[in-house]
């Protein structure tokens, strides 16, 4: 009998142990076993609403602004029907003892967020805060990286109607200097002579540089070259010399508009000469007796670029007889979106170059800026970057970027052409600010179920 009593005592003890352990071993509610990650959902909702900085704009608006109503609508629209929310905005005030969060506004679609809720915070800055983009530098990895912009005060331009070369140079500097390791304004023809002789202006590498001629169809000529040898055929020989230098230093020579190397300009040396349109300080390239002699400049340049041992006077016409509306190529259109530079994608070309120069001068198209067109069976390139590459060689020895468009030049085309070719990457930096920040807290709760 005693043993039975003992057993019952044991049962009572074990029962007590079970009851006590069951009391403490509380099993979670089903919703806690496999919960929806409300914190992540809140964060991604805030990020979605701030895709175009709409949320950043709204939270800085007065509390009676209609934008708050729109925010409430989109919150209700984008969250699942069983999710309720409370969005609170705090102004971040920086003080000596830390940051203070001052409540400014709250919107909600429910009185209580239920038994379980979670929240995410999101710091937004006022639209007054600047967003920084850091571009990759052309030439940063590898040679070159120098951009020379011809800004010669002692030369005149042509076919840049409505502008002067100096204003174009300034715009180009603003557009392109962030993308190059070093950007130098070549202030006069004397400085041009220096770089033609491989002398640096500010310690920059001369090799592999990009030179933008902002003078349109004219090209500045230093006084040192305004003499015989270079003056042959009204300075067509000088253009040949420029081609040689472009090849020697592996430059990229950029002609922003019109027919390249049509005139040479030096205000001092050609003070009594004019280009037949009343612009003094300028001489048309080519023998005076030839009305179309100006076309010898580009031919001479290409001869020099192709390392022809002897200069030959050649006034072969390289352009079509009529103007054609051309469209930007796919690569350049894509670059427009990437770099945020939007020239019109339709342009009129009157100085497109014949494609046979590719085979005649060992050129290869490195970038088609505009789609080519055909006139009378001849293919013309209205805007291209030509790379000089000798046969059986894969090394680039000089390049020419020629935009054969009609005046007036759109300098953004030059900029986007170079960026499309070199493709520098853009590193977008996060912004932060003091005194202009607000903290947005989105608290989500789940309704229904257990």
């Amino acid at each position: 009998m005693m043993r039975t009593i003992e057993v019952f005592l044991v049962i009572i003890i074990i029962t007590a142990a079970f009851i006590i352990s069951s009391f403490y071993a509380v099993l979670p509610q089903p919703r806690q076993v496999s919960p929806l990650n409300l914190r992540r959902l809140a964060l991604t909702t805030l990020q979605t609403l701030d895709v175009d900085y709409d949320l950043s704009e709204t939270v800085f608006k007065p509390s009676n602004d209609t934008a708050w109503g729109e925010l409430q609508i989109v919150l209700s629209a984008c969250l699942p029907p069983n999710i309720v929310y409370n969005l609170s905005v705090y102004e971040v005030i920086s003080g000596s003892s830390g940051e203070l969060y001052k409540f400014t506004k709250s919107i909600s679609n429910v009185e209580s967020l239920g038994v379980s809720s979670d929240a995410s915070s999101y710091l937004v800055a006022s639209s007054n805060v600047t967003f920084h983009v850091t571009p990759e530098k052309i030439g940063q990895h590898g040679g070159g990286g120098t951009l020379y912009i011809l800004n010669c005060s002692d030369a005149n331009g042509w076919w840049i109607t409505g502008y002067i070369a100096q204003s174009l140079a300034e715009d180009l500097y603003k557009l392109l200097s962030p993308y190059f390791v070093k950007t130098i304004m070549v202030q006069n023809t004397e400085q041009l002579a220096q770089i033609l002789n491989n002398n640096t202006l500010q310690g920059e590498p001369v090799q592999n540089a990009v030179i933008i001629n902002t003078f349109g169809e004219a090209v500045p000529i230093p006084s040192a070259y305004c003499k015989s040898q270079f003056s042959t055929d009204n300075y067509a020989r000088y253009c040949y010399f420029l081609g040689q230098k472009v090849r020697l230093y592996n430059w990229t020579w950029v002609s922003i508009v019109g027919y390249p190397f049509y005139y040479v300009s030096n205000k001092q040396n050609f003070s009594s000469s004019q280009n037949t349109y009343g612009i003094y300080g300028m001489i048309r390239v080519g023998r005076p007796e030839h009305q179309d002699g100006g076309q010898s400049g580009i031919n001479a340049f290409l001869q020099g670029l192709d390392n022809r041992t002897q200069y030959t006077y050649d006034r072969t016409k390289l352009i079509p007889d009529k103007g054609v509306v051309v469209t930007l190529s796919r690569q350049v259109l894509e670059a427009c979106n990437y770099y945020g530079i939007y020239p019109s994608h339709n342009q009129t070309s009157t100085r497109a170059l014949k494609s046979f120069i590719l085979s005649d001068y060992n050129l290869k198209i490195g970038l088609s800026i505009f789609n080519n067109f055909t006139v009378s069976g001849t293919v013309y390139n209205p805007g291209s970057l030509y790379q000089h590459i000798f046969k059986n060689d894969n090394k680039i020895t000089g390049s020419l970027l020629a935009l054969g468009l009609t005046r007036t030049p759109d300098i953004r085309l030059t900029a986007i052409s170079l960026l499309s070719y070199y493709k520098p990457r853009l590193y977008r930096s996060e912004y932060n600010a003091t005194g202009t920040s607000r903290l947005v807290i989105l608290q989500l709760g789940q309704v229904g179920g257990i």
Partner: protein
Amino acid sequence: MTGSTIDHLVSLMVFLGAILLFIGLFNQTIQTAILYQRHRFIATKCSDLLDNMLLNPGIPLYWGKSNCTPTGFGLQDPEFMQYKLSPFSLMRLRSSTGEPVYYPKTGLTYSNITMGFGNFLLVPYTKAINYSTAASLLGVNGTYGFQLTITPIITVSISEVQPKNPLRISVNVTGTGFPLSNAMVSYCFLTVSLTGGEGAYPAYTMKYGNVSTDEKGSVLIEFAEVNDDKVSYAFIAYAHLSGLIGVGYHERVTSVKQYIIPFIDDLAERRVLIAHSYDVHYFGPPNAELSYNATFVLLTEDFTLREMPMENSTGKVGKVNYGVGNPYGVVTIPTYNPGILVITYRKSAVEGGVILMPWGMSSMAFPVTFGEDPLGKEWVATDIRQVLVNNIAYQAKLALWSLEGYQVIG
């Protein structure tokens, strides 16, 4: 002595019975606790796996814009951070909902996402990423099963209210739980012109505009120039309000049996094949040649649609016919910016139409369903995120379950 033995036996039996009972009771508690841990683990795994897919662009970074099989699976847009997905990586996921389409002229089967007549996205199986490859790359092959669904948050429903004099189109904009009132709607209205002689290419005119929705999220748009219900047209609308953007589309065609079907051929080369519908659906005969005219529109930053010029050399216009000896057409998309390929087609002077194909999943807000069906699976954990695909708001939902064989239901 006997009483003592009986007492001993009774007490032993009662004791053993009590012990067995308590073991059972404790065992049930412990089993429930283990199941809780398992379920909790699957839920955590689900959340981690979803972030792993959405916050990682994969390897190589631009696998969505190429034909290669990635060596790392991820859907994030490599040019952005956070929950922004690549519209092209999504395009390469083999759809688990649409009926696959076989195209005899290429001998390939195509993953099919078709959102009603005239809205096609067909990617060859050879270029699409299948479920088992993705599971292997994610390290869950054989241990977990999943289904990823990415659906647009904003639904833009478009319907024709009146066919002519004037054409009236109703646009309704709703979110997952609420209509989007006062939303700005930017639209592109493309009408097909079938004029010209036999075999002429269809011409088209495009009209753009902006309207706002009312408090119910609806707006009615009229086109007085449409005075014939035989006019084929496509209507594409982008609705946006405070950062939320949605897309809708609607077409009316006069040739519903013979039409154009675009097949993506090469993602790296941006090449699309233009096929005659009879080659896929076998309606014929009689069959007729279709001439087509393709154009590409993209959404600009100010929410307007812009036509992007296509060169003739890219296959902008052409003719296709059914049967052996009649090759398909080829068109090259001019850009990697997401947009919509609009192909107008002409069967005769009175029959024609227009079809749309998104270039990049987001441009027509196509949904994606990738993976196994969770129906009938034991204990499916789900998690959701709000994501952006080329600024179009989507909701990504992952359903995950264990394949390891032991019991997961208590």
